[in-house]
């Protein structure tokens, strides 16, 4: 039954991924704020998710190997780790391209970038350990033990460290509430300087009429180091931001979210939002392509993983006969 389904499954995987490759550029509209570079999310996010899945599978089969000692469990674990490394590389490269266009740098040690870099190091070390040992029971056992030890540090990297460090460029605020998510409060007399993501903001001046408050804010772009002075304003009657100013050469914009205090001592809450401030997947075509891409990449992962595990298993058997 399963064997009969294998060929149609492979063909549909090919079709799904061909659809994604074509739709990404032809069918999906350019993102309102980010423009064409927004398309990369269709590859970037699914490969990132699959990295986590692959390493989870690797830890699972390592545990099974230690329990049952079957050659196939070890082969499954190794194949999953190899694919995890491959997918993490894809995710990192696409992410770096996106970061260069949108944030100005390929790499800036944002917590998620740190996490994926350490993930890659951990699993590179897995192969360093594995290749340094003579093939055999001890090699398989020690690599399984290391894979399990390593999997302990992964949740810390993905879920805990982003909470403690307060600089991140990834849209974390929906999941993790880092201190800067709400924006930044600047007061005319007290705190006049602060940081949102890697952008440094400085309040220079506040002008106020009966209905309108205009703040003069100096913004330092972390990529180029250039200083620009922006003048976002706030409608005091309606309580809504009025002028929203874009930081030149970036896709971020400064707006005043809230104003409190009296005219003599104002606290101004400033937010630095992505241009358009809309999610990447709000568009329906983008969402559909994204989901198909997720499905396609997952199917591809399962297919290659099974195949590679089969080959590794055969190799181990042959080595076993020769020994």
């Amino acid at each position, binding site marked *: 039954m399963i064997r009969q389904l294998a060929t149609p499954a492979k063909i549909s995987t090919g079709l799904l991924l061909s659809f994604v490759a074509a739709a990404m550029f032809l069918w999906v509209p350019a993102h309102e704020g980010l423009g064409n570079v927004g398309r990369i999310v269709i590859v970037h996010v699914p490969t990132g998710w699959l990295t986590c899945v692959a390493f989870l599978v690797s830890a699972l089969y390592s545990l099974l190997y*230690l329990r049952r000692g079957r050659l196939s469990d070890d082969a499954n674990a190794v194949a999953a780790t190899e694919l995890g490394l491959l997918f993490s590389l894809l995710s990192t490269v696409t992410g770096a391209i996106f970061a260069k266009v949108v944030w100005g740098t390929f790499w800036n040690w944002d917590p998620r970038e*740190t996490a994926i870099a*350490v993930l890659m*190091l*951990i699993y*590179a*070390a897995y192969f*360093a*350990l594995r290749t*340094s*040992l003579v093939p055999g*029971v*001890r090699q398989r*056992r*020690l690599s399984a*033990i*290391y894979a*399990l*030890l*390593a999997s*302990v*540090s992964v949740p*810390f*990297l993905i879920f*805990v*460290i982003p*909470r*403690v*460090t307060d600089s991140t460029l990834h849209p974390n605020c929906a999941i993790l509430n880092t201190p800067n998510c709400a924006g930044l409060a600047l007061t005319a007399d007290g705190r006049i300087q602060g940081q949102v993501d890697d952008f440094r903001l400085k309040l220079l001046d506040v002008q106020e009429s009966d209905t309108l408050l205009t703040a003069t804010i100096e913004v330092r772009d972390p990529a180029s180091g250039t200083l620009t002075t922006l003048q976002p304003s706030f409608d005091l009657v309606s309580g809504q931001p009025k002028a929203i100013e874009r930081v030149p050469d970036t896709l971020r914009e400064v707006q005043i979210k809230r104003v409190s205090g009296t005219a003599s001592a104002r606290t101004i809450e400033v937010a630095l939002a992505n241009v358009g401030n809309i999610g990447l997947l709000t568009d329906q075509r983008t969402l559909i392509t994204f989901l198909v891409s997720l499905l396609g990449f997952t199917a591809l992962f399962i297919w290659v993983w099974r195949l590679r595990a089969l080959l590794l298993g055969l190799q181990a058997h042959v080595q076993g006969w020769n020994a």
Partner: protein
Amino acid sequence: MRHFFRAALAVARKDWQIELRTRYALNAMLLFAVVTAVLVSFRLGPLGLSRDRQAATTLAVLLWVAIFFAALNGLSRTFVREEEMRTAALLRLTTPPLAVYLGKLLINLLLLVALELLVTLLFVALMNARIAQPGLFALTLSLGGLGLAVATTIIAALVAKADGKSALFTVLAFPLLLPLLIVAVETTEVALAGSGWAQAAPGLRLLAAYTLAELAASLLLFERTWES
């Protein structure tokens, strides 16, 4: 249970005595720490850093670099020696695996405490490091050191089985310890600059949680490592 802890203590005492006779690990670690501190203080000595706004950050990073790499120089010895002297089999026959692990952990902790004391003294003397919050500093160093000892002990057991390929030790330990080191550096920075306990609390909690998780994993996995 009493027998078990006595066995663990006996393993630690045996290793301590061997260590005192050969002083291999102690010499390797402490000299590495001295060399690092001297090298760093040439340029970043009392005058080099005192005018720097980011002195606390620089010092915290250098302190942990010195501790981490010096520790990696010595901490694998306890297990590698058992394999080299062919005493591992005997130990396996006479002592329960977990007692071996705890004994080795204890001896590594002792070595690490000596190392951290020396590195701190050197940094205070050579770099004119001012520790604004000594209590917090000591707590961070103890928690970070405990985590370091827990993780390196199990990795040392792994590496010893890999025919003592000591170059592997750093490669395997570094990614595993990176989360711990990142947080330890940040918390040490708080202690050096004296920004207060409230700032350090999340970091301290994380250090404790990480150490506990690694300890649990080590206790579960050590028997498999030791007996393969």
